[in-house]
């Protein structure tokens, strides 16, 4: 069994990238990007998460089954969030006042 996982250099590279992204997200937070600020922060967080998943957690090189279960949680979470927000965000859409306007 020769899989000792990624080389030390890879780990260090990933680590430096992670710290870089941390700096970027903190720096960006102090700029006024309007609505894009939240999107940027979440995008960077997703990139960091992906790095951790792929390299530190060895998802790269794992069997498909492991990929499946690594994805399943996020998929179900996406269902929970999207359908819950489909309620919250659309509550003002049907304002019964509209019907009663002349």
């Amino acid at each position, binding site marked *: 069994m020769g899989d000792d996982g990624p080389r030390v250099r890879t*780990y260090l590279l990933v*680590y430096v990238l992670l710290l870089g992204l941390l700096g970027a997200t903190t720096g960006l937070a102090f700029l006024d990007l309007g609505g894009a600020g939240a999107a940027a922060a979440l995008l960077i967080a997703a990139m960091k998460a992906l790095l951790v*998943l792929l390299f530190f957690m060895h998802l790269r090189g794992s069997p498909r089954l492991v990929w499946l279960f690594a994805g399943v949680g996020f998929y179900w*979470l996406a269902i929970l969030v999207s359908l819950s927000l489909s309620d919250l965000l659309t509550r003002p859409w049907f304002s019964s006042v509209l019907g009663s306007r002349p």
Partner: protein
Amino acid sequence: MNASFPPTEPYATLEEQRDSATLGMWVFLSAEVVFFGALLLSFVSYRISYPRDFDVASRQTKVALGTLNTGVLLTSSLFMALAVRAARKGERRGTIGWILGTMSLGFGFLAIKAAEYVLEIQDQLFPGPHFYLPGADPGHARLFFLCYFILTSVHALHVTIGLGLLGVLAVRAAWGSLCREKGHQVEIAGLYWHFVDLVWIFLFPLLYLLGRHPPHG
């Protein structure tokens, strides 16, 4: 495979046992994703409903300490990855060393987090009866800090559990019973540790950074 270290029931081979344990941890982590996700959903939906008050409140979090803590946790993840690597190669001293390194950073994270809590309680930001935050709707600001304290303390609980796991492994590595099984227990614990890091990667921007920029208008 080392004959002196047989697989336990119900497995025929150590390889099978190792694969099962890895899969089991990933299945568990998928449950954890939903667990933290459900909490985050509460936070996000209030953030959407009350963006202005949540901006005001989130500016009260200690962003310097938070950033430092993120760095600490990311570094601990690197150490953990190196511990797994050492365990896989059967390097006992390396394994113990990196595990202890990971643990000390984990304790560091908890210490910094505790310091933040102390500062926040001094600033009357704990959403109890003494809560006080001018400039925001008191109810909504309480909601923010309620979410903040719940999310971070549940996360800290996970860090603590991770530290417990690593502590056990460090002792077992010192006894020498770890490396012969190609370190799969270190790997499983590593998955958990990295996941806790991953959760923080999302908590940090959501709690500390959104709304950090000076308000316009």
